[in-house]
């Protein structure tokens, strides 16, 4: 055996020190997983309910508004409420139109590096918190199917950009109220803030940072990509905040549009 071969041998199974217990932590390490599970579960329940209830997702001309819920945009089925339908649509789609599109934002968030961190910890207990034993007999991480699919994240990122553009378009359109003219209502601000948060979430994405400039070997040789990278890097540091803010706000936007569309509240016109 050559010296290098001998040198790179890793010795396994040495006896470990310390007591054989799952953790010696005494702080409230379980708090973070509990919060994550609560928020994500609430979101999944709400968005599932919303996706399977294709009513009141659009406040249209009858109410003098043009507000569409982000869960239903673009509305791609022939059954979409009058005025909400996108230019292209599917004839005879029997289910809720939301089901045609939600796979993209869902896939984007499921494969997001930040959400992965959160659900691996909170739902999968792999590990539940740092220096707390993970609950699995064997572990292969993201090396095998299905988790190897996480590597498709950048495609969902691209799709996310298309959705952001469409939701931005929805927000701009909302400023023109049918039969009234241009004006600002609470609904327009809600849609605008929603689109802004989604842009911030996408632009702070790790795949975005990599594609902007992280990929290059030499910043000096790629000055424009270096500039882009410098622009998105501070956003990337706040990716977690944007992930939560945009998630919660997208649900609140849906709630708001539903309340307006159902007539429960009037969308206040500000000026």
């Amino acid at each position: 055996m050559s010296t290098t071969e001998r040198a790179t041998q890793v010795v396994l199974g040495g006896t470990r020190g310390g007591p054989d217990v799952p953790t010696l932590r005494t702080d409230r390490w379980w708090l973070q997983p509990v919060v994550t599970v609560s928020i994500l579960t609430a979101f999944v329940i709400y968005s599932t309910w919303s996706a399977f209830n294709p009513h009141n997702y659009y406040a249209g001309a009858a109410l003098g508004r043009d507000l569409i819920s982000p869960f239903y945009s673009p509305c791609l089925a022939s059954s979409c409420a009058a005025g909400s339908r996108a230019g292209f649509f599917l004839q005879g789609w029997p289910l809720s139109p939301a089901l045609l599109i939600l796979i993209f934002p869902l896939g984007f968030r499921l494969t997001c590096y930040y959400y992965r961190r959160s659900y691996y910890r909170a739902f999968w207990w792999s590990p539940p918190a740092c220096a707390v034993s993970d609950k699995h007999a064997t572990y292969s991480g993201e090396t095998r199917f299905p988790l190897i699919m996480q590597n498709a994240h950048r495609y969902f990122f691209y799709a996310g950009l298309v959705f952001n553009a469409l939701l931005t378009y929805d927000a701009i359109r909302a400023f023109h109220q049918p039969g009234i003219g241009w004006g600002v209502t609470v609904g327009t601000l809600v849609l605008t803030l929603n689109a802004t948060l989604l842009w911030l979430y996408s632009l702070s994405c790790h795949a975005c940072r990599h594609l902007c400039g992280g990929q290059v070997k030499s910043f000096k040789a790629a000055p424009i990509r270096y500039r882009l990278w410098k622009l998105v890097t501070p956003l990337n540091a706040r990716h977690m905040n944007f992930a939560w803010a945009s998630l919660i706000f997208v649900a609140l936007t849906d709630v708001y549009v539903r309340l307006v569309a159902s007539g429960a509240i009037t969308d206040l016109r500000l000026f």
Partner: protein
Amino acid sequence: MTDVTLRVWRGDASGGDFEEYVTEQNEGEVVLDLIHRIQATEAPDLACRWNCKAGKCGSCAAEINGKPRLLCMTRMDQLPEGPVTVTPMKTFPIIRDLVTDVSFNYRMAEKVPALLPPPMPEEGYRMFQEDVERGQEFRKCIECFMCQDVCHVIRDHEENKTNYAGPRFFIRYAELEMHPLDTNDRRDFIREEAGLGYCNITKCCTEVCPEHIKITDNAIIPLKERVVDAHYDPVAWLGRKIRRKTKTKAADAAVQPAP
């Protein structure tokens, strides 16, 4: 001055248990001060590694109240009331008391394919400030190996040790991959030999790093994205094919004699 209880794990490969020591604690003291006081008074044979007492050598890494910490940088007054547990790092084989055998990390260091610069141009190598700065963060590493210790991939799964470089070496790989004078493509190696895919980016390494290196965000995720470029992204693959073609063409053109 107050009295505190330290529960220190004492033992070696044949077994061990907690010993309780009640010792005095003065203002501003760190856990290492108390360990030294215990050595000086009750237990001269208590084994513990340390060198700088300034958070710069990485020798005194152990676990305090269940979390990887530097003994010399953890102030007693920052810990909650009540007894303080001090245990050796869990992931590495025990030598004695708080001292572990961290040679796993040296084996992983030996595996890293070295920097491979292009032939020296006549005017010498040049590196620009923006490229120097990029790897600066990674060079702050003091090799305390607490990130390796906390990483559940090997902390909870000993069998993964043969095939897993761990966060400390992922920052080394990242530094090399971001080096403008490096021509070595380690992406296959990182995926197959260094086991990058085992990391599930749960960020515990980042949480414990005493140098506050953003290990996951700035090294591991950029490496994962590089592996995606090389293996899982057909668009990037196609782009490379086309670019390589134009590059060869440019190279061909360069050897054409001037008219």
